[in-house]
Structure formats: C-alpha cells, structure tokens
C-alpha cells in the first residue's frame, strides 16, 4: 500500500466556538448522556473533576479520623479509643491523607488542566486515564473495606517491620495495606505514564519546552519520580505479603532476614513521594500566583531547574528518616549533607514567589491569600526540616511530636493551601461559576489560624518529649495544655475546610457566571469557554510565547500566538502530535472512543486482589484471566485508530 494514503495535510482555518466546525467537533467528542456515558467516558475534564471530588471525599474521611484522635488526646488518660483502635485510626489517617488525598488531588488537577494548558484535546491515552481513576477509587475502597471487619492497617502509613509480620500481627490488617498499596501503585503508575507521554508528544505547535507552564513541569518531573520510586514500595509490599502468606524471610531477623530492608525500600520510595505530592502543588502556585500579581513569574528558568533538581536530589536523602537506626557514620554524614543541600532549590522557588509579589501589583483575592499563606507555612515547615536534617538534633527529636508538627506544616502547607487556592482559580473554568470570595476569605483566615493553633504547639509538645503514635499520656508530664490547644486548633481547621466545601456546594449552582477568563489569566485554558466543550479547542492553537493571552502587553517575542486560527483536525477524534523539544507538528493521532474496558479491567483487577486477600486462589486466577481478556479487547489494533494495515478512513 502506498505511503501517501497514510498522510493528510490538515486544513488551516479560523474558527471560534460558534462556528460550524465547533458544532461538528461537539458531536464527534461528546460523551453520551446517562449512566452508560458516565461509566464509559474518557473525557479528561470529567475524569479530572471526578479525581478531585474523590480526593476531597478521602480528605474528609482522613480529617474525621484526625478529629477522633485529637479528642482522644485532648486530655490525659482518656479512653475514648482502645490502643488497637487508635493504631488503626492513626494508620488510616496517614494512608488516607498521603496516598488517597494528597497525590490523587494533584493528579486530578493535572488530568483536568494538562490538555487545556498544552493546547490539545485530551491526554495521550484517554482510556488509560479512565483506568487510573477507577483503579484509584477501587484501591481506596479496598483499603477502607478493612474497617468493615475491624481490621484496618495498624502499623502506621510507613508500616515498619517486624511489627507488620505475621508473628506480631496475625490478622488481615497488614494484608489490606500490602495489597491495597500495590493496587494503588498500579493506578499511580498508569497516571504518570499518561502525563509523561502527553507532555512529550501532544503540545500545541510552538510550545517548545522553554514555554511550558510550570504546573506541567511539576507534574512531568514527579511523573518521572513516580516511575522510578513506585516499584520500591510495590516490591516491599509484595515481599511483606509473601513473608506473611508463604513463609519467605525477607524481613524476618530470626531467619537471616533484615527488618531494616523494609525501611530502606519504603523510604527510597517515600522520600521522593514527599516531593511528588509537593512539586505539582508548587507548580499550581507558580502558574496561578503571577495572575494575581499582574506580572509573569520571576525567574521561570531557575524555578524549573529547581523543580528538577529537587526531584533528583529527592532520591538521595531517604536515609534521613533512619538516622536513629544505627547505620554507619559515613552514611549519616552523606545523607545529612544531602538533606541540607536539598533546601536550596526550594528556597530558590520561595524567593521567586516573594519577588513576584514584591515587584507585582497583587490583587488580594482568596486564591492569593491561600498562595501567600502557603509561602509562609512552607518556610516554617522547611526550617523545621533543616533542623531535623542535622543528625544530632534529629536523634533528640526523632519519633516525637516535633516531627509530627514538621510533616503537617510541610504537607498541609505545601499541598492543601495551594490546592484550595488552585480550586478558587480553576473552579470557574470547571463549572462556569465563581466561588464566593467573601466566604472564601473567611475560610482562609479560619484555616490559617486553626492550622497554626493546631500544629505550632506540637513543636513544643515534641521538645517536651512527647512521643508520637501514643494513644494517651499521663497527667503531670507538662503536655496537657499544649495538647488541649492542639485539639481546639484541629477543630478550627476542620471548620475552615467545611466552609470551603459549603462554598463549593453553594457556588456550583448559584455562583456568579464566570465567562471564559475571569482572572485575566495568560495561559491557553483561558481561551476556552467555561466550562470548556468536550473537544477543548475548535482549532489547535499555535503558541509563540509563555503567555499567549498577555502578548499584547508583554512584547515577549517576535511572533504572536494564534489561538483562533490553526489546524482543524475534524476527521473523527483527532489530536496533533508534535516533536519533543520544539513542538513542531509531527503526526495526526487518532483517539479512541468512550469504552467500558478501563472500568471492567479495574474492577476485575480489584476483585482479583480481594481474592488474594481471602486466599481464594482459584477466584484470583479467574480474575487474572478475565483481566487479560479485557486488556486484549482494549489493546486489539483498531483500523479506525490507524493501528493496523486495514485502515478504513
């Protein structure tokens, strides 16, 4: 067959969202209405919003667990919870917040925003995106199902051996953890693959890598981090499960195993994970803060390089979680030094944000407040991190509430604040309605005060020697007042979050109508109507600078971006592939239709894992076989997608 039949020159046209081209694209790209469409959709916007909503549901669950713990710890010698119940609740609180909220919520933002920021119509693998979502939801439900049998994981989110071994932990608690984490890891890996290929191959023409929005840099960098780090915890969980089910001896010191191997594998994964749940959030701030400062971000290049440097160095500091385990002095020195050095790229980003505010003309919106609050909390969390990077100080502070204070300043400061700020920025894009600013500012001040009231005193609790993870404490240790203050602060924080949720609930129907660009933002997502149509862009925009919508006032480059005149691509579901570095048009990609196979494969896979948990080996085998058949349907070369020689155009 001649090569020529596989090629086409797309037409170059001017088209807006009222043109005939747009209505034609609408019929090509729209999801069918009804429950069938809801279950089979591959629209990245729908899935992104679903991701964010599910993550917020887990945030609420994790928050309720936190409040229960704070009630238990409000006064000495309380017995609201038994020690075992407390273990399960603090473990699930950590697992929920770190694995089921913090990373998935950022995945949700990226899934929603990536194609819009990059000027394309969907992620590179739309069906894989749907699979990631379903597998994430299934993994979350799988782990929470443990509460139904009163056997939730009870060894913390870090799940140290040997307490997690069968000898000390005979129930199914740790099996829920090990299998659930592997399941979640599959979902996360699939998401990372999707973002990486999307950013490498499907950007708008002209969006060379030095013009990428910082949010996409953050997610791209963390996607590489996920691909390199995730296998460590997957392997560790597999080893743990094998130790528990089949009598292998990886972590069993009585048979030449090494309990410390668990910590190595876990922290090789979990320290990069800290940056994985932070860098995209920093990207949100780097992209959205400048909108409210009415100027471009100061130091784009150094912020990008800092993002990459942080991720690279993030792989070289895991041992600082293990300073107290008796490892050799030379290792302590190296990892302590590395932990000090890694503050530098973060500090560069902080200076860039401060300079952007300083030299800009800030508009004090709710989103701006959350971003400014984030910068301050990030600095406090960072400084307590520097303190614990010192081996001498860490030996004193390790396993005390000081570390609990640090982790919460870092994770709530760098994840929750930017996420809520980002929600205020992009909620109008997602729903077409504005969030209420007045209510928003109230929620910001309550969250900020509640947060500091809850976690600042924890530094003192820790310095006063209160160990973490204890379910109660005796009177007269000097910990009573600080613990009471912490508990009151926790409820304030929860009230603030509740106000944000009420705001969302009220505004989604009754908020002011947003229009395409309510904040006067510079990037491509603000070209589209709010909410964007299923095909995102009527024509593929061509980009000539970092701020396509601010070019008239910035005079950035020679050319002008062209957002309403571009390649049409309306011969079925189509996207433009571009080259990796310069983003020059390279190929026309045929995109798949909505499909049930992602849902089916995710459900069958989860059922198979449930079978492993219950030791129904035959059932799991059947599920594996069904999953294989589902994958086969999914991956069968389709002539329509140009994957086989029998191409019907």
């Amino acid at each position, binding site marked *: 067959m001649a090569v020529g039949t*596989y*090629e*086409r020159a*797309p*037409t*170059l046209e001017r088209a807006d969202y009222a043109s005939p081209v747009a209505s034609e694209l609408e019929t090509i790209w729209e999801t069918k209405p009804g429950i069938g469409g809801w279950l089979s959709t591959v629209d990245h916007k729908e899935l992104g919003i679903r991701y964010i909503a599910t993550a917020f549901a887990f945030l609420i669950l994790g928050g309720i667990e936190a409040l229960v713990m704070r009630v238990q710890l409000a006064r000495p010698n309380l017995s609201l919870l038994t020690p075992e119940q407390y273990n399960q609740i603090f473990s699930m609180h950590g697992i929920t917040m770190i694995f089921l909220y913090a990373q998935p919520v950022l995945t949700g933002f990226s899934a929603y925003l990536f194609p819009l920021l990059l000027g394309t119509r969907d992620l*590179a693998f739309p069906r894989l995106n749907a699979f990631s979502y379903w597998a994430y939801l299934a993994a979350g439900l799988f782990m929470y199902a443990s509460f139904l049998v009163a056997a939730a994981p009870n060894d913390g989110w870090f799940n140290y051996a040997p307490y997690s071994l069968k000898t000390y932990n005979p129930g199914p608690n740790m099996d829920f953890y090990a299998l659930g984490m592997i399941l979640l890891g599959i979902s996360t890996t699939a998401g*990372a*693959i999707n973002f*990486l*290929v999307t950013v490498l*191959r499907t950007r708008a*023409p*002209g969006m*060379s890598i*030095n013009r990428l929005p910082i949010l996409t840099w953050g997610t791209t960098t963390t996607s590489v981090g996920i*691909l*390199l*780090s*995730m*296998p*460590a915890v997957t*392997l560790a969980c597999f*080893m743990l499960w*094998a130790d528990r089910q089949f009598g*292998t*001896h*990886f972590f069993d010191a009585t*048979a*030449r195993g*090494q309990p410390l*191997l668990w910590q190595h*594998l876990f922290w*090789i994964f979990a320290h990069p994970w800290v940056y994985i749940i932070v860098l995209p959030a920093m990207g949100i701030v780097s992209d959205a803060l400048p909108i409210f400062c009415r100027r471009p971000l100061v130091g784009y290049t150094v912020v990008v390089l800092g993002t990459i440097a942080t991720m690279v160095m993030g792989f070289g500091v895991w041992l600082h979680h293990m300073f107290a385990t008796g490892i050799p002095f030379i290792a302590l020195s190296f990892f302590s030094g590395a932990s000090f050095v890694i503050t530098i790229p973060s500090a560069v980003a902080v200076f860039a944000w401060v300079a952007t505010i300083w030299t800009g003309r800030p508009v004090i919106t709710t989103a701006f407040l959350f971003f400014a609050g984030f910068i301050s909390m990030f600095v406090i969390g960072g400084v307590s991190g520097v303190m614990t990077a010192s081996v001498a100080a860490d030996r004193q502070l390790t396993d005390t509430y000081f570390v609990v204070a640090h982790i919460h300043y870092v994770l709530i400061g760098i994840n929750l604040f930017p996420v809520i700020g980002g929600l205020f920025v992009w909620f109008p894009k997602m729903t077409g309605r504005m969030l209420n600013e007045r209510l928003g500012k109230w929620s910001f001040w309550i969250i900020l005060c509640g947060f500091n009231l809850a976690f600042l005193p924890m530094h003192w609790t820790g310095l006063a020697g209160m160990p973490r993870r204890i379910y109660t404490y005796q009177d007269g240790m000097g910990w009573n007042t600080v613990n009471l203050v912490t508990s009151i602060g926790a409820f304030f924080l929860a009230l603030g979050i509740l106000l944000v949720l009420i705001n969302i609930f009220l505004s989604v129907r009754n908020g002011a109508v947003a229009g395409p660009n309510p904040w006067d933002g510079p990037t491509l997502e603000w070209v589209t109507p709010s909410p964007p149509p299923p095909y995102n862009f009527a024509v593929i925009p*061509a980009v000539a*600078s*970092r701020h396509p919508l601010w070019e008239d006032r910035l005079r*950035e*480059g*020679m*050319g*002008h971006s*062209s957002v309403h*005149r571009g*390649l049409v691509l309306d011969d079925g579901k189509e996207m433009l*592939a571009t080259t990796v570095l*310069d983003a*020059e*048009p390279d*190929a*026309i*990609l045929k995109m798949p239709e909505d499909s049930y196979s992602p849902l089916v494969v995710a459900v069958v896979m989860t059922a198979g894992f449930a079978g492993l948990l219950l030791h129904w080996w035959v059932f799991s085998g059947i599920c594996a076989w069904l999953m294989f058949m589902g994958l*086969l349907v999914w*991956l069968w*070369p389709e002539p329509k*997608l*140009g*994957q*086989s*020689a029998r191409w019907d155009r």
Partner: protein
Amino acid sequence: MSDISMTHAPTSGAAVRPSPLPVGSIGHKASGWWGMLTIILTEGSLFSYLLFSYYYFAVQYGREWLPSEPPKFRLSLPNTIILIVSSVVVWWAERGAKRGSWGQLVLGLLGGFILGCVFVVIQLFEWKDKPFTYASSAYGSLYFTITGFHMAHVVAGLVILLMLLVWSLMRYFDSERNAPVSIGAIYWHFVDVVWLTVFFSLYITPYLG
C-alpha cells in the same frame, strides 16, 4: 523574558503551515512506543530494587549468607544464550515487518516465541534443581523472587509475542502500519537485558571473591 528562543518564535501561523502529516500510529511517532519506553523505565527500576535487595543482604552478611554450593552454569548458561538469540530473532522479525516481508515477520515472531518458551521450560528445571526453596532461607526467598519476577516478565513478553503473531497471521501489519510489532519487540529486548543483569548478579558475582 529574554530567553525566549527567537528561532522557535513563529510568526503568525508559520509553525502550523499545513503540510502533509502521517495519520495514526506509525513507527516511533506512535504514542504507544513512547508509552512502552515509560513502562520499561518503571519496570527497570523494579529490577534495580530487586538487585538492591540482593546486594544489601550480600553486604550485610557476606559469603555466609550464600548457599554452600555456588550457582551452577550447566543449565543457566545455555539458557542465557537462548534468550539472547531470541532477541536477535525478534529483531529480525521487526526488520521483516518494516521491509514488508510478511514471511520474515511471521517466522521471526514464531521463532522468538518458541525460544522464549524453551527458556521458561529450562528455567523450571533450574528451579527444580535447587537444593533450597523460597521458604528455607532469606537467600532462597530472594533467589526465587528475583528469578520469579523475571519469569513473570518473560511470560508477559511471550503473551505479547503470541498476540503479535496472531495479528500478523491476520495480516494486520504492513510495511507502514506495524507500530505494535516495534512496541512488543522493544519489551522483549528489555526482558532479555534484564536477564543479563540478573544472571551477572546471581550466578557470576559469587565467584568474584
């Protein structure tokens, strides 16, 4: 703002002059090819953590951790050679696909598949031959986990080769539309390269002192 590259700043529409573009999945322009590279990146790190665990135990316990009798080459060495040959055969098949030679494609995939199956069977004998089990010591646990993970990847690769063979027999591919063949082939090469690192770690390092 000064570092915007002038060479890539298109004047209006310059970057999008409508020139003919290939449509659909073709060669390295296919999204799936890039997706496979990312899978290899993450699977490659899985094996580096497996080998990290192996060397971690080796450093902690030294020689006394190894079984008294070092691993033998009677089955493992020929098996390694079989796997390398299978990679060459699959490469030959892919080359056939690109030349439009249907016979070479089918024959090569079939050859690669058969050689892969031979590897699995010999490896099963190798497992049977071991004086220890996965439950007898930490070394045994790790030996069977590393080679087991590798076997799982070989089996996945065999399934891929089999499906490519079926699709080739159904005349799904020609000299242009054969991206799935390249995508499957690169995975098979990856599985074979991983075996070389596993073979070096488990079979050769015990003799290195």
